[in-house]
């Protein structure tokens, strides 16, 4: 059987196909079928010829196997320094071999590659910082995931996730109507406490276009309400688009570049259509990386930049605090020791470390840095889609040990975590290891301590 019913090389493009795949509980049949999935060697070779250019070929060639990257990888540290977890080994034994053999690889090999690309790497790019040659194995793993996806060797959940983006332009089944309705609902629910509160949809020429993670309208709409209230207090002229409101990209985790392009194009179209001065995205790490850092290249934008300047939520918060748009009541600042989870995607890979420190200087009295921190921080343990992959749950939980020990060493019981995947990983590490910590996004913390101007207070 060259291709299976569930496991094949065809992306999910219809609701029917999506439901069919979802109905295969935990991907049981999907993974069984994968054992018989043939590698399309000619296609793999053609893809390599077309896309594997000098940068990656050079990186693979010049790696001196010096092992400097070993200690940079949290999987290596968490797995008792297993040599098979050394980043250079992981990439040489997978992508290195595919390139060397020019695509002439078999099914068993591709399954090993998949298990390495998703089960032993979160694409946190930390190893790249420590390589004396500047070889970025995170980037190469991203590329490798794309090769795997094109051959149908992709974890079941991510095939679904990429399909969601293709169908809904969102990582979950949230339609434009659902989204707009949720905006109206949240405005209604909070209008009594916040007179004049609005969630303006499709307003042209606003100062800010706000975009989110689909999990917010789907399951956590209060996050949207909190964002609205904070914009309201800050007096921002803002809007959300009815279409192109989703910034995340499971397609990026899956290596489905076509879906990646479709997804970011929807957001860029919204920018072009509504002509805001700038874009602000919610507290999500990979959403920012996908739409702001990688997206312009997927969409073929020559400038390498989004159509309007784009900001992560921490940039907006830091600016609002700095300019006094948001003022913190000094008596309500966080008194207990508190630490901050630097998300790989917007700190290491986008350089926003100082924004995070600036925010903490306003809201916390006893801020404790993790060690290492900023761009040197370790991945939460759940990045790159790993949190959601049942097949690698055990490996993920082992990897969490590094973050656990980092947090415990600070002495803080509260972790500020402005990233959905970090938030989940830290929640899960508490569940697995019971260390007695709490975690929070910024918005609920800010709402507890921000000074509300008199004219915005409700009567009662």
């Amino acid at each position, binding site marked *: 059987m060259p291709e299976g019913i569930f496991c094949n090389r065809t992306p999910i493009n219809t609701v029917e196909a999506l439901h069919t795949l979802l109905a295969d*509980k*935990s991907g049981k049949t999907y993974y069984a079928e994968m054992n018989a999935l043939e590698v399309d060697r000619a296609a793999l070779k053609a893809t390599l010829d077309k896309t594997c250019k000098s940068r990656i070929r050079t990186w693979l060639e010049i790696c001196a196997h010096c092992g400097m990257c070993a200690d940079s990888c949290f999987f290596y540290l968490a797995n008792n320094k297993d040599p098979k977890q050394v980043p250079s080994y992981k990439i040489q034994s997978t992508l290195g071999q595919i390139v060397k053999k020019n695509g002439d690889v078999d099914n068993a090999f591709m399954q090993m590659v998949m298990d390495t690309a998703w089960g032993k790497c979160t694409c946190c790019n930390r190893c790249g910082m420590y390589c004396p040659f500047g070889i970025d194995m995170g980037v190469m793993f991203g590329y490798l995931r794309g090769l795997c996806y094109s051959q149908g060797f992709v974890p079941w959940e991510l095939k679904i996730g990429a399909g969601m983006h293709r169908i809904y332009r969102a990582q979950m089944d949230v339609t434009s109507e659902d989204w707009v309705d949720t905006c109206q609902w949240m405005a209604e629910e909070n209008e009594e406490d916040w007179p004049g509160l609005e969630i303006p949809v499709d307003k042209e020429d606003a100062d800010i276009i706000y975009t989110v993670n689909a999990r917010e309208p789907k399951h*956590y709409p209060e996050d949207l309400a909190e964002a609205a209230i904070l914009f309201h207090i800050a007096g921002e002229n803002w809007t959300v688009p009815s279409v192109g409101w989703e910034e995340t990209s499971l397609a990026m985790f899956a290596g489905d570049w076509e879906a990646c392009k479709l997804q970011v194009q929807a957001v860029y179209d919204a920018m072009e259509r509504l002509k805001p001065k700038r874009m602000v995205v919610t507290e999500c790490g990979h959403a920012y990386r996908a739409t702001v850092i990688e997206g312009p290249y997927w969409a073929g934008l020559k400038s390498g930049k989004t159509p309007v300047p784009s900001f992560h939520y921490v940039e907006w918060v830091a600016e609002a605090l700095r300019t006094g748009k948001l003022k913190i009541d000094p008596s309500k600042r966080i008194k207990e020791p508190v630490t901050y989870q630097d998300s790989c995607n917007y700190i290491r890979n986008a350089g926003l470390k100082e924004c995070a420190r600036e925010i903490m200087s306003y809201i916390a009295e006893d801020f404790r840095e993790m060690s290492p921190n900023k761009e040197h921080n370790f991945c939460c343990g759940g990045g790159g889609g790993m949190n959601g992959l049942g097949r690698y749950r055990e490996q993920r939980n082992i990897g969490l040990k590094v973050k656990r020990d980092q947090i415990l060493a600070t002495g803080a019981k509260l972790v500020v975590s402005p990233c959905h995947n970090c938030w989940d990983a830290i929640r899960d590490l508490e569940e697995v290891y019971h260390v007695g910590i709490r975690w929070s996004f910024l918005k609920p913390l800010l709402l507890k301590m921000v000074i509300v101007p008199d004219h915005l207070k409700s009567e*009662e």
Partner: protein
Amino acid sequence: MFDKILFATTGTPICDNAAHVAFDIAKKYNSNLLMFHVLGMPSRGFSTVVKDIRTGEVEQYDTDYISWVKEELKNTYEKYLKDSSSCDIQAIAGVPATEILRKARQHNADLIVMGAHSRQEETGAARYRGAVGTNMQHVARGARCPVLIVSRPCTTCLWYFSNIVFGTDFSKASFSAFLFASKLAKEIGSKLYIFHALDMGAVLAGKVLSQEDVEARIQEARKKIEKIYLPHLRDYDNFQIDIWEGIPYVEILKYSRAKNADLIVMAHHTKEVEPDQAILGGTVEQVVLRASCPVASVNHPDKVSG
């Protein structure tokens, strides 16, 4: 009055009394009943699994699982369903309070019926106890329609409803509660008790109040009731006004027992508190947990005016 009733259930014994009342009311008022269950908590980040609210187990969220949960609900409520003419069952993943409010809004429900969903409940999912504990509070505060909370077997509910106690603290939300209580009383022809408890804890604030002072304040409250509420009763005269002093939740419980109340109507407009303190939260929580009749929490005029 109650064309569409949303019965929000955890599917656990804590909701048994609520189920009884929900099906009874639906029968009496010939209402369309929607049984709604939020089955699992989703993650914040990417995942296709949810944590089952009842068992605490991780489950793959798909149509199979939903069908299985619905089947379980059918078995649990079999004795009511066989006598019920129209009851739809729906189950969905999410944060319970959020999904209940979303469904009530989409469904345009006239009444939500739920159990106390308190932290006393043993769900086995200790991790989510906090979320479950604030559930009732969150729904009561946010719902646009009255929320009927049933935590104990109703011993006086022979005919829904014959003695309605409306407790007021004169807040804006309390006026919505009054609109509901008076509308219901007029439609059914039940006796309406308008009650206010002078909060001695808050009034005292360290100083001793003389008996004259207490009586003056009681007089003042009576005048307020006469001014705010009575004009809206128009010619309906089957009502009684009483003002007692003490700790509000104790007084309203004593009063409703004395009057054989089968429904207490109050507003629930206190700000949300930390999950750990929720159990000791406002007057409504205390009344809900201790009352021997259902408590309707009404905070918005949308579904009760006119």
